[in-house]
């Protein structure tokens, strides 16, 4: 399997605190990797480093051989890394379909002048991406909500819309930050199906942070465990479940 994402020696300090220390991960194309660890281990910080929200103090991030270090968030999105947020961040007062269309931004080309003069390029692209957005919403069974405000969606649907919006940027790698947070078991099961479907249909790699172990162990092909900003173990779900260091970090050590 070819390497899509290659992260080496990634570290970041906030003042005296080393939030992430010598973080390493390799993700192959179309691989589903879980990132777990106790609260405060630095999982979301890793996401923020990968998406350009923070600049790492040292280390390298290569996507398909291109460095992501020092690039702005919106550039990294265009290079193929999309994300969702732990606390849902939708454009609440805009319609569901507009949420998706905004993510098509970099694929739409017509200029402001073409919009003002309503040139054929405006109509053509608006029509094309309206259809693309509806197709994407259909995959998530959101097409009936398309023209409603995003804030009126039920919680689970908002999560799905956030994933749909991330997919609209045509990523190679999708980062999901606690997608099952606040969901009941049946919603979590549905989400697992959705993630699996997304991976196969869009042929992308997924890195997900999650505390729900049934979800992580159920769908991830590889799991990495983070503690105090460093990777303490990585491997298949079975290996992780039996790793003494992981058990120690979650349950504490026996004397």
């Amino acid at each position, binding site marked *: 399997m070819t390497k899509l994402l290659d992260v080496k020696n990634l570290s970041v300090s906030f003042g005296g605190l080393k939030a992430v220390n010598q973080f390493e991960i390799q993700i192959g194309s179309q691989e589903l990797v879980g990132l777990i660890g106790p609260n405060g281990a630095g999982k979301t910080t890793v996401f923020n480093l990968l998406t350009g929200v923070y600049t790492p103090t040292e280390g390298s991030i290569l996507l398909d051989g291109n460095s992501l270090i020092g690039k*702005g*968030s919106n550039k990294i*999105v265009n290079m193929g890394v999309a994300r969702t947020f732990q606390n849902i*961040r939708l454009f609440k007062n*805009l319609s569901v379909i507009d949420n998706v269309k*905004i993510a*098509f931004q970099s694929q739409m080309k017509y200029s*402001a002048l073409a919009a003002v003069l309503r040139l054929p390029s405006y109509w053509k692209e608006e029509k094309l991406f309206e259809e693309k957005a509806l197709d994407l919403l259909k995959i998530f069974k959101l097409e009936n909500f398309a023209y409603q405000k995003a804030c009126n969606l039920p919680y689970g649907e908002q999560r799905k819309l956030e994933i749909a919006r991330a997919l609209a940027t045509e990523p190679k790698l999708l980062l999901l930050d606690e997608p099952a947070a606040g969901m009941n078991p049946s919603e979590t099961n549905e989400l697992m199906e959705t993630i699996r479907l997304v991976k196969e249909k869009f042929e992308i790699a997924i890195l997900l942070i999650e505390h729900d172990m049934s979800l992580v162990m159920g769908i991830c092909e590889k799991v990495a465990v983070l503690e105090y900003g460093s990777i303490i173990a990585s491997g298949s779900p079975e290996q992780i479940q039996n790793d003494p260091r992981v058990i120690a970090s979650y349950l504490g050590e026996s004397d």
Partner: protein
Amino acid sequence: MNVLKKKIPSYIVNAISVIAIYLIISQLVWIGVINNYYLGIIIVIGINIILSTSLNLTTGFLGQLTLGHAGFMSIGAYASALFSINANLPESIEFYFALLVGGICAAIVGILVGIPALRLRGDYLAIITLGFGEIIRVIILNLDFTGGAKGLFGIPYATNFTNVFFIMLLTIYIIWTVIDSRHGRAIKSIREDEIAAEAAGVPTTYYKLFAFTLGSFFAGIAGGLYSHYILIIDAAKFDFNRSIEILVIVVLGGMGSLTGAILAAVTLTILPEYLREFSEYRMLIYAVILIFAMIFRPKGLLGTSEFSLLKVFQFIKRKVIG
């Protein structure tokens, strides 16, 4: 659903009603129902509509509170006035060149102020733009070629109902078409959630500057119309109060609603004129009306929604038939 087919009927309805409004008002002027006093108010309404719709772009759609809109207006007013006084172009086109010069000067200053200022958010941006407005006023007051405290004289009279009306229409049209496009969606996404906008691939810095500059450009145009109507301009006409007046229009109309801004501009220009009879209590009544509007309609008259004639017609049709 075909986007084109969905929008065409409303375009037609709006175009017809706009022409109708123009014809009705110009006929009323012709037969003398609207005298010069009323015509003056209508011109000021037109200028206020340009100012409030352009401020709505930055404050309503982009969601950045700016308090220096009168500063951009003054740059447009002085630049276009100085152009008209000094240039020797044929009369018919000179005015439009002057307006363009005013708009472009305001836009350039908008870019220069916007680059550092838009790195800040919320209260900080408000304070910076407030400071900018005051700086411009003091600079104008102390320069020689602006006439200093005496004011600038000898501006040719060029603003009339027809050109204000059509420039106002053009402004609303341009701002509306920009908002109703991929660019407008990007601008609105920044208002909703800047971090999420960035994560969805929107170049936020570019679009903040884009909206801010476009807003300043139209403020400059409005300034040009104003100086060629009032004929003598001085720095005190563009002070902080003026910026607040425009902001009040936007807030009352609804942040993020163009038709709301238009409605509020009409209301808040006419209201003080009607209250002249109660001269001493004029500003008191004005303030009380605003307070009540904010208590009962905190989102503004129209909130973020737009008034649509087509929907009104469809509603009437439904009522009549069904």
